[in-house]
């Protein structure tokens, strides 16, 4: 890698191709996003929407898993975890919305595209959905969530409600779900990945659905704290016909795998935001004086101490995240991502990374006072985006219950 990373992290696990990708993405981020974002403060979408197309299509990041015949890179082994982490971190440094758009797209593809679940036909189905939409390969994931009424649940959904139900109809299936909340991009994604319970036997299923399928209704987009470039919107599935080939998988183990990959992607995005936050705080610390004595901000014992804490928190978040990437990339050593131990590691790592990130960002804002919350300095956007990523992991109580269940055989009710 060309640039000097101030944080030690286990980069030995990155391949030469990964390192080259990191360098390219870092240069791209500097030139195409960071250098231009000041002039797009009023309307970041004008900068980021073309950038997404460039990232997804010109740089080929949305097609990392696609067969070479489809213009992709054919990365179908679990090594993808390391490549994805390194890439998402660099993109997250540029912008959280961009990075999460890629994160959800790659998560959906990985659910059917990565060994040992290398499923050519279902990956091709996704590719075709996106090609027919004529839009970048945006995906919206609909995952277990808190219930709003008497919605069905089961242990494989961690006590959360199933957003949708799947029932047998003739020789196929029908999907039904009202006001399902995607992880993001609900107003514009071409493909949905929907968690559902099979009505007859309460099995968990995960369904690939085209946004243009009959019975798919997008509702009005809603506002949220961050990650707003691709607006989110609830989606209803009104007896949507689901061919067998559109069911990505059945069973809780596969759902845990999907969630573990998404957890990793989220942690990488958060780490990217932290890298940019470190740069912003460094600039602030070197260019401000305090107490009217000409003392450079970063050299005051108290502010230096707090900046030290921020650096430590960023370093810890990155180390945890790359460690998780390693776990997912080596199933032969650690077990597959659906294994309870690995899944729990994913839940824990991402929760820890988000908490470390929020602590670091809160501290950074406190150090920068009004500049911390002024849009001009961009720190507040990273803070809002990170909180939004954290919220998208689901309710914290479900995560804590999972850790207790795994580490202490707790049977929470």
């Amino acid at each position, binding site marked *: 890698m060309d640039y000097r990373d101030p944080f030690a992290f286990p980069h030995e696990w990155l391949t030469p191709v990964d390192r080259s990708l990191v360098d390219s993405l870092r240069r791209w981020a500097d030139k195409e996003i960071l250098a231009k974002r000041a002039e797009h403060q009023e309307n970041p979408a004008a900068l980021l929407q073309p950038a997404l197309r460039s990232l997804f299509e010109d740089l080929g990041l949305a097609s990392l898993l696609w067969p070479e015949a489809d213009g992709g890179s054919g990365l179908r082994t679990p090594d993808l975890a390391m490549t994805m982490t390194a890439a998402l971190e660099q993109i997250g440094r540029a912008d959280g919305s961009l990075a999460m758009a890629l994160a959800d797209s790659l998560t959906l593809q990985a659910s059917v595209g990565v060994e040992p679940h290398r499923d050519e036909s279902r990956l091709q189905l996704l590719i075709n959905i996106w090609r027919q939409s004529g839009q970048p390969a945006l995906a919206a994931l609909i995952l277990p969530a808190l219930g709003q009424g008497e919605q069905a649940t089961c242990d494989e959904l961690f006590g959360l409600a199933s957003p949708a139900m799947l029932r047998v109809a003739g020789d196929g299936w029908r999907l039904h779900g009202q006001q399902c909340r995607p992880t993001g991009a609900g107003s514009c994604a071409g493909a949905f990945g929907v968690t559902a319970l099979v009505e007859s036997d309460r099995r968990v299923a995960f369904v690939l659905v085209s946004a243009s399928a009959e019975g798919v209704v997008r509702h009005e987009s809603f506002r*949220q704290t961050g990650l707003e470039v691709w607006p989110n919107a609830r989606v209803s599935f009104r007896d949507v016909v689901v061919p067998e080939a559109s069911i990505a998988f059945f069973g809780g183990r596969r759902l845990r795998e999907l969630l573990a990959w998404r957890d990793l992607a989220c942690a990488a995005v958060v780490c990217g935001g932290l890298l940019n936050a470190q740069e912003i705080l460094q600039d602030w610390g070197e260019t401000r004086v305090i107490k009217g004595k000409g003392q450079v901000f970063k050299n005051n014992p108290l502010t230096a101490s*707090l900046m030290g804490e921020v650096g430590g928190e960023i370093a810890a978040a990155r180390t945890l995240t790359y460690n998780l990437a390693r776990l997912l990339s080596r199933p032969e050593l650690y077990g597959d991502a659906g294994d309870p131990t690995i899944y729990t590691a994913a839940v824990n790592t991402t929760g820890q990374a988000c908490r470390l990130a929020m602590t670091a960002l809160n501290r950074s804002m406190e150090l920068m006072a009004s500049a911390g919350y002024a849009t*001009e300095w961009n720190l507040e956007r990273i803070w809002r985006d990170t909180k939004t990523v954290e919220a998208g992991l689901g309710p914290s*109580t479900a995560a804590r219950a999972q850790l207790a269940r795994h580490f202490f055989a707790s049977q929470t009710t």
Partner: protein
Amino acid sequence: MRTIDDFTRPREYLSPLDKHLGKIVRDWADREVLPFRRQYDEDWREHRLIEPAFDKLMAGLGLQRLLFPEEFGGMGMGHSGYLGVGAYRIMEEVARADSAMAVAFAVLFWPLLMICNEPHVNRRLCAEFAPRFGRDDKAVFAANAMTEPQGGADIENLDVLKGATIRTTARVDGDHWVINGHKLWPTNSGGVADLFGVVATTQPGSTDPRDFAFIFVPADAPGVTQSNPYRKAGMAADKNGDIWFDNVRVPLWYRACGPGDDLTYFKEVISFGNMGSLAFAGGVLLNVFEIARDFAAHTRYRGKPLHENDDVAAVLADLAAEAEVARVLGYQYARMIDRPDLYGARWSDEVVAKGRAYKYLVCDRTVAALEKVMNVMGACGVERAQDIEKHWRDVKMVQLWMGGKQLCQMETARWFYECETL
């Protein structure tokens, strides 16, 4: 069902008007703000929605006249003996709806404190400015112009710097002050305020308290220019911008209290700012309690209402505990402000330091409590429709205003540990 009125209030020292003032402000909040506040973020520049709500609060209810003595058409709160607890109640109610509105409304009183409060009432200036605030159809704002580009919170760091870093100058020319300088970030700048209280020096670089000057400048005085408001993470109802003073001339008698006294009584502004911050955080906690209570009752986890889960209940309990503690500390500080005979002058180092301590403690804990509640709510926690995320963004800014956390810590340490070199 428990309500926010089940949180403890120190009944033995509430203002006689507490119930009445609390009710009219809560009714205003429920009617004029709560139904519209989700649109405020997009209204940050124009205030098309926000301004009419301010008009009804400040002009319609007459609250912009609170501080002025009765002889000038005011409500005489400055000498009532209940200024602290009365203001705390009002600010808490406003902040429950929108803490940025509470900040903007409270800051109206900052410069006016310098001339309306006993024992330093300046009757000539009261007579001069009270008519501006007597309108019953239009909210009229004032602002303190303190922070400067080169020093950030240095202006508020009075114990150490004693005004030595102030670069805005006030020079006598005949029977006028001539003011030159550049200020950043004042609440109610960006074209909102009609009247500024300008912190200036009569002798640049001086640490002599007599050279610290607090001078009133009408916003429409020749030589005053303002920038457009800054864009921020939240607090849409509170506009901040740059103000430039270019050879601005005001009469000599526009100086608030005079040499030496300006600096002494300016510290009172800091005390009221800290008390206000406690009320803002307290009001936010009350509304988040309401939101979390309803959310947890109507949302289900493992087949039961969310609040019936022990882990969730613990988080909700922490929120309620923080709201109780915030209110106890807030009213305690308000009482200290009302009873200088018992606790010391409002501008004393002790009262200022204790206000800083309470402010940063409560704000830190409010931000942390909100983050935990948002985490329990999962993805819903960051949706604007739940209103908590707005409170979270806004109260983060309350935590950071008035010089940020480190300044609070240093002032606290200086008083409690008698530090000499911080």
